[in-house]
């Protein structure tokens, strides 16, 4: 071999070594972690069945985005590691749920949870995790923590997701939910505006029920023959009935509806008078104010139509739950654009981490500018994203929800009827 051929071959060999060396090093950074995680799990008596990083290679298919790992334990049970950012602070709540061979929760370990003490689940209820022990996937009688509703709901959802990952893949049997539990879990889905629910006393065929703390309506479990139904009555007296599969059976359950409406009528607080006074103050020259029934189970406590001159408007009084219950008034013109928005209590200064320097809601002028910024928005132009204000996120998110609910009610008003 000539000298230049020798050096050419040597150069190519060195280049190949360098390229593959770099590739092996780079790939090693990724694979070493996977291998070391697996070995650590094995040494702890766990066999990895699922890893989010290698989800495509797992034989478990029904696993949602919040589940990071699933291990099989030596005793026949399972461990599910999951995480969510649906907490109050938006920080990551990571937990590890262990389940025994019979599908009952044997332990829950919190790996990370950033909420400050004022909103911390475990500061509010130190025994909250204990309420999960021994429960199957139905999570019967497990509630959320008052004062930390958002984070404890995120916690409960995460535990439910963990158990569902095991049941839906046939690793454990699914728990059976009672009708009462099914109905209670249906309420947020069918009536998202019913906030701060408190139980009511059973009477007649009403076996169980809740009153919305923001006066948006009632959720009642009513017996009719052998079957139970969930009857929802909103603040305007509109009723909807659902069976235990979540199907709308209002048309065939008029007696259930009548009983629910009768119960609600004697306990429902009316906001119509206060709404009328507010409208007259808010919209100069408002006349022909008529209250209507909006067929929606959102945050609305009163809905009205009125005129200013020749122009027609719809008005909604909503009571969303921000840091606390707020009163929001939304007026929408005939074209579907917001004509006016007002909020009775914008900031609960004494309870917030209120930082005047970093919040542009400090002065009355700033708050007025915030409210006026909604004017002209329609269902197509309102996204709500740029309406969230730092340090007042809960209040501004609640206002956004109220606006969405008002638009939804406005669109469904074709089915609304004028009060007799």
């Amino acid at each position, binding site marked *: 071999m000539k000298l230049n051929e020798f050096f*050419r071959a*040597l150069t*190519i060999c060195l280049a190949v070594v360098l*390229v*593959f060396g770099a590739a*092996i090093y780079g790939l090693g950074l990724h*694979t070493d972690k996977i*291998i070391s995680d697996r070995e650590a799990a094995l040494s702890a008596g766990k066999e990895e069945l699922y890893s989010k990083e290698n989800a495509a290679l797992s034989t478990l298919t029904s696993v949602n985005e919040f589940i990071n790992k699933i291990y099989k334990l030596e005793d026949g049970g399972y461990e599910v590691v999951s995480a969510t950012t649906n907490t109050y602070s938006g920080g990551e709540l990571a937990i590890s749920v262990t389940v025994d061979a019979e599908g009952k929760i044997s332990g829950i370990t919190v790996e990370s949870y950033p909420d400050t003490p004022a909103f911390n689940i475990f500061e509010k209820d130190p025994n909250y995790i204990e309420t999960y022990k021994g429960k199957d996937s139905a999570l019967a009688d497990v509630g959320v923590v008052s004062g930390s509703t958002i984070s404890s709901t995120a916690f409960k959802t995460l535990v439910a997701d963990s158990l569902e990952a095991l049941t839906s893949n046939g690793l454990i049997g699914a728990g059976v939910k009672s009708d009462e539990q099914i109905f209670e879990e249906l309420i947020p889905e069918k009536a998202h505006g019913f906030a701060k629910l408190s139980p009511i006393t059973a009477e007649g065929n009403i076996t169980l029920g809740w009153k919305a703390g923001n006066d948006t309506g009632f959720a009642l479990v009513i017996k009719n023959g052998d079957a139970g139904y969930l009857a929802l009555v909103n603040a305007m007296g509109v009723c909807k009935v659902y069976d235990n599969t979540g199907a709308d059976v209002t048309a065939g359950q008029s007696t259930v509806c009548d009983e629910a409406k009768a119960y609600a009528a004697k306990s429902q607080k009316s906001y119509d008078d206060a709404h009328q006074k507010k409208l007259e103050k808010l919209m100069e020259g408002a006349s022909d104010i008529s209250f209507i029934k909006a067929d929606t189970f959102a945050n609305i406590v009163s809905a009205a139509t009125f005129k200013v001159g020749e122009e027609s408007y719809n008005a909604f009084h909503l009571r969303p739950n921000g840091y606390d219950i707020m009163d929001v008034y939304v007026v929408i013109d005939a074209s579907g654009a917001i004509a006016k928005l007002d909020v009775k209590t914008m900031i609960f200064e004494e309870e917030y981490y209120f930082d005047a320097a970093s919040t542009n809601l400090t002065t009355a002028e700033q708050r007025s500018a915030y409210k006026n910024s909604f004017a002209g928005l329609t269902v197509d132009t309102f996204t709500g994203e740029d309406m969230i204000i730092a340090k007042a996120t809960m209040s501004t998110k609640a206002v956004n929800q109220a606006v969405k609910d008002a638009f939804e009610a406005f669109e469904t008003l074709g089915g609304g009827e004028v009060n007799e």
Partner: protein
Amino acid sequence: MNKRTHLLRGVPGLLLVLGAGFVMASSNNLKAALGMGAAVIAALVLSSIVISALHKIIPQRGKLPCYVLIITGFVSLICMLMEAYFPEIANSLGVHLAALSVSAVIYRDADEIAGKSGELYAIETAVVTGLFFTVIMAVCALIREFFGSGAFFGNKLAFMKDYTVGTLAGAFGGYLVLAIVLAVIQKFSKNKSYEEEE
């Protein structure tokens, strides 16, 4: 000899009996056989692409070390991926997976085909070679796993419980089954090969 005959003559683990050790080692169950097959196909295709692209600039007498380095590099990457994502198969293949880097199956393809032809023909040959190698291993694995272990794809078959031949699952069984498969293939392919060569 046309291109097709060239391909068929070169099927490893068949006419040239290249890679018999790999077939023996990797064919005691179907999962391992398919895993080894996938590794061989990947190593063959990737190294064929690189070698066919570089063969004109590599001096004749420097080819052996260059080819070995390229093949070893790809086999190392494949081993790492299999150990991370398919640990069960990687464990069952053991050292035979890493030993692919010095396999005559891959080196023959690199030297005879990729080192003398363009990328497309090299890839085509690599895929055909790898697929045939995988099919032979899978057939051997199917026979050995079914009759030797009374199982299919890792699942024990209850009705085979009393009818297994343990020897077939061992090394001797590997060679025996490979020999039988080779004999059957030779029987059906010999005449045709002669006809094509004539």
